[in-house]
């Protein structure tokens, strides 16, 4: 899709929403039916001491059942379109341009969060009058930003390190010392 084509017509308040390819819609409907069926099944097992009208599972069950009906509707519309050209094939592809790069990014963020939650290292002390902390958040964020920028930007290493250290330090000081919000680690 070229730049000039983006946003030139109103296609709903959320521009990413539309028909997917019939196959994708059927898969989505099947996943929704499985999820909603489990949700409803669980809801029917909840306690209802004052009768069904005040039961804990009333709204969850109603939501689950109505979601199953909607998912069946989605599957039906997709089935009716099964022989048609995918309505938004180009847009479907637009959601994930390069699955390998997307998976790589997901893995990097996963490792970043895992390390942040498990790293117990931390340096604390005064720099002048300011109480400074250099803990798991700072270490993992600098490393993660360096790695992500190296892969997805490929700028000069000194620039990547400078941006990562500068941004992390700015966030750390702003939140720990100005907003007084503790950071992970």
């Amino acid at each position: 899709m070229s730049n000039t084509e983006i946003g030139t017509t109103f296609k709903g308040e959320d521009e990413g929403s539309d028909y997917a390819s019939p196959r994708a819609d059927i898969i989505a409907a099947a996943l929704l039916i499985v999820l909603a069926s489990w949700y409803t099944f669980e809801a029917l097992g909840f306690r209802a001491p004052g009768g069904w009208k005040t039961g804990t599972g009333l709204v969850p069950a109603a939501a689950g059942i109505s979601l199953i009906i909607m998912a069946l509707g989605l599957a039906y519309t997709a089935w009716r379109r099964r022989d048609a050209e995918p309505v938004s094939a180009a847009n479907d592809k637009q959601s994930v341009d390069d699955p390998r790069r997307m998976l790589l990014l997901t893995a990097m963020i996963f490792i970043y969060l895992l390390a942040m939650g498990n790293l117990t290292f931390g340096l604390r002390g005064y720099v002048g009058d300011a109480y400074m902390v250099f803990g798991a958040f700072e270490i993992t964020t600098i490393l993660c930003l360096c790695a992500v920028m190296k892969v997805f930007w490929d700028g000069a290493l000194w620039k990547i390190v400078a941006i990562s250290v500068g941004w992390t330090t700015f966030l750390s000081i702003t939140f720990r010392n100005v907003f007084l919000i503790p950071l992970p680690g």
Partner: protein
Amino acid sequence: MLDAFSQVMTSPSLLLISLLAVSLGIIWGALPGLSTTMAMMLLIGLSAGMEQYTALMFILSVYTGSVFGGAISAVLLNIPGTPDSGPTMMEGRHLTMRGEGGKALGMAIASSFIGNWVGIIVLMAFIPMVLVFALEFRSWEMFLLAMVGISICGAMSSGAMPLKGWIAGWLGILVALVGMDPIYAEQRYTFGIPELMDGVNYIAVLIGLFGMTEILRVLPRMHHLPIPKDVGRVIPSMRLLGKHSVAALRSGVVGTITGAIPGAGANLASFLSYDLGKRFAKPAEKAKWGKGSYEGIICSEVANNANIGGSMLPTLTLGIPGNAPCAALIAALSLHNVVVGPTIEVDHPGLVYFIFAALLVANLFMYVAAIGLIKPSVILFSLPRGVLMPLILPICVIGAYSVRLSMFDVWVMFISGLVGLALRYYRFPIAPIVLGIILAPMADENLRRALIYFDGRSWGFVATQWVGTVLLIGLIAIFVEGVWRMIRVARAQRAPPAAP
């Protein structure tokens, strides 16, 4: 009102926060790919450490700034910074090519300023009336109102396929019902995880859906944005705006009304106003539409900014978010123990007036900051996405973590990001999920209360609750209209193409 206004004007810290936040919002909105909603969602967690009024001033100023900011890249880059600046782009790109980019942006600034005024004035005029009316709402009406909010948002967010909007809204309901039941204190879907006893932290979910999803979607893309040409002098011309005053006023009304409809946000406002403007334009002006019309920019920018005031109306009086950014506002207020709804003036006297004052001050700063920030924003356009998007990642982490100081919430944010990515892939809208998450607890509690109240009474009695009956008819109408729209689209797709 004057007290609130003087409270803001005499507080240097509030003024400074407003100026900084408006500037942040303008730059954020100007950068393609960073939407108003994303800005609002990321900033909720960050406002947790602020005092109530400071946080409100911060969030409202960012909102005001970022709605305008989208016009900058729309005019100069030919890419709408926010989706609602699409019509501005259609006219602005031609004006930029003719060397009138600065003048077009000046017109966008003046139009945004006027649009904000229209929205705020309408908000101030109607809020007392709606609040009195809203006090009549009981459990049955509140349940129906919540369902109308979720359903209408679903219908509005997905043009050809309202079903997907409703499904997204229902997914939000499923998420919101996790945790302790408010009536019997029984656990629902917690799997014995202590962190889920309080429910899923919806702020983490919102940050994941709007922040993490965008990082995962946009960062892996290879292409980069072009750097814009010379902007020229930016002159906000009130005289030129005056020439199109009828179009400005009409767009202000359209923007405010669409804002007051739950789920109908700035996107619909600007496109609808642009379309109406084209129909009502004088023949000489009409010839310029699509080729660089200032009136087109006025219609779009007045409407999407007037939308801010309009969207506050259901948000503050009924607790129903007018659009996704207002859902963020509700979340930010809840962090400061403010529950919006019919009793807001009773529970938090003066808060509504403070919001009026904050919006007015933010609008004034928007006018000033916009002129000064256009050229720095242009420099930021040259920033590669490979640099920009990773910088947002730690903000997502801090935002999710800061609410309950829990790494569990950070993981919830990450998983929500992945779910959001899957939903985008399958072409589901995201905004209805937000309304589902926020309104489901209200629907759950009030439906059960209403059923107890109606126990042993006839259907005739239920029908005499006229507000509820009107809402019920409205709810049915939303579904009927949505299904009818799907049938029409399906028929149109099956119809053979017309002969040339």
